[in-house]
């Protein structure tokens, strides 16, 4: 369709942040800030979380060290031959809420998905010094191009729900919950209310 522009420059000029986050980078993130992520992250959604927490329950070791890492909630579509990966946008985060505090307690530094987190997760993030980011939901084809490498780490039997390690470049995301305890969705709602007030 000729109406479409090919490259949005806006997303090319975001402040760049390396993954995994350095302690300084983590502290500098502010709710509402748009960032461009480059580096490595891990992926997981419903079945990965179920399996990780079952391993913890049984006192077993996890297949990956999550300390300081970012866990991205995504179940990619299969890669066509010759491609790194298929579409790979975020899935809704609240489904992971019941598992997240356990992983944050282990030292997971950041999670990324879409949609608001529960009060328990927000509290756990504050307690353990972790942040939450939103990726652009429904932009799976665009985000696919930001993933330069994908490696299966565990739970192959879970298909699209397996745990992968991604290498990403210029992957755009919005900081939702920062270390100061701010929540961007709540800030947007509050600003709107104030405007009406």
């Amino acid at each position: 369709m000729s109406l479409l522009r090919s490259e949005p420059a806006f997303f090319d000029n975001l402040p760049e942040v390396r993954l995994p986050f350095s302690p300084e980078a983590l502290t500098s993130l502010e709710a509402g800030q748009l960032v461009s992520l480059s580096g490595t992250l891990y992926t997981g959604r419903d079945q990965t979380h179920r399996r990780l927490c079952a391993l913890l329950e049984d006192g077993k070791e996890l297949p990956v060290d999550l300390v300081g890492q970012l866990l991205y909630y995504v179940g990619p579509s299969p890669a066509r031959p010759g491609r790194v990966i298929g579409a790979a946008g975020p899935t809704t985060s609240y489904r992971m809420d019941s598992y997240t505090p356990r992983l944050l307690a282990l030292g997971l530094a950041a999670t990324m998905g879409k949609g608001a987190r529960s009060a328990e997760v927000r509290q756990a993030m504050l307690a353990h010094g972790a942040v939450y980011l939103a990726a652009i939901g429904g932009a799976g084809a665009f985000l696919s191009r930001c993933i330069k490498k994908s490696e299966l780490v565990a739970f192959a039997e879970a298909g699209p729900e397996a745990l992968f390690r991604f290498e990403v470049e210029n992957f755009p995301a919005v900081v939702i919950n920062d270390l100061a305890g701010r929540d961007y969705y709540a800030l947007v709602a509050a600003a709107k209310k104030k405007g009406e007030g």
Partner: protein
Amino acid sequence: MREIDSNEIRKAVRDMAIAAAHDLEPDILEALLAARDRETGELAWNILDLLLTNADIASRERIPVCQDTGTGILFLELGQEVHIQGDLNEALQEGVRLGYEEGYLRKSVCDPLTRKNTGTNTPAVVHLEIVPGDHLTIRFLPKGCGSENMSSLAMLPPAAGTEGVVRHVIDRVLAAGSNPCPPMIVGVGLGGSFEKAALLAKKALLRPVGEKSARQDVAVLEERLLREINAKGQGVHGFGGITTALAVHMEIFPCHIASLPVAINIQCHAHRHKEIVL
């Protein structure tokens, strides 16, 4: 009696599954474009712009618009003068299976108890209606679950009235927050029975985006709902702005004197749908 070969149906469904995942239809593209051009929030404008770019990349590079390529929902209108050679349901399911396999689409269907993936994205959900004539119309609506999970059904007391319906719909849409990837299309099914309301809400999504109800009072209600939802300012992905919803489509059906069923089926901006007439 007109004969339609089930092989033809299987192939049509396969092709629709692949096309739906990659090529958005003009109705949703135009709605996104119009929303972008109206949008005042900077982040919201840029995300709408990115969604148009995303659709462009998807179509050109054959990467699905969204990784959640959905549960297959099939709506069939079967002319009563058509005779199908072979097994219709098998042809539909096999078409979905082939489309998801050969199109590199994500298989997202699992057993509700064991959560074991069926591995084929089947079974698809099939709705069949018998209509006059000698054609078969098949509509394919792959439905992602970020939006489907935010849907709901309520049996309101008739005393709730129009105002009660409006409040209920707005409450549900706002409670969904950014989970269903707004801007969304809100399908409302009003009246009928428990299951009819849900089906109406889903069928409302089959209407071209933004097309008004043919019934004047319903069209007025659709417009009011859209205006009030967008006035709340949640906006694109919950980041603020004036585009929480692209459209509200309401389908209605008479109901029992003691009943007022309201179903809300939410659809995301990745509104994928295809149609074929055989």
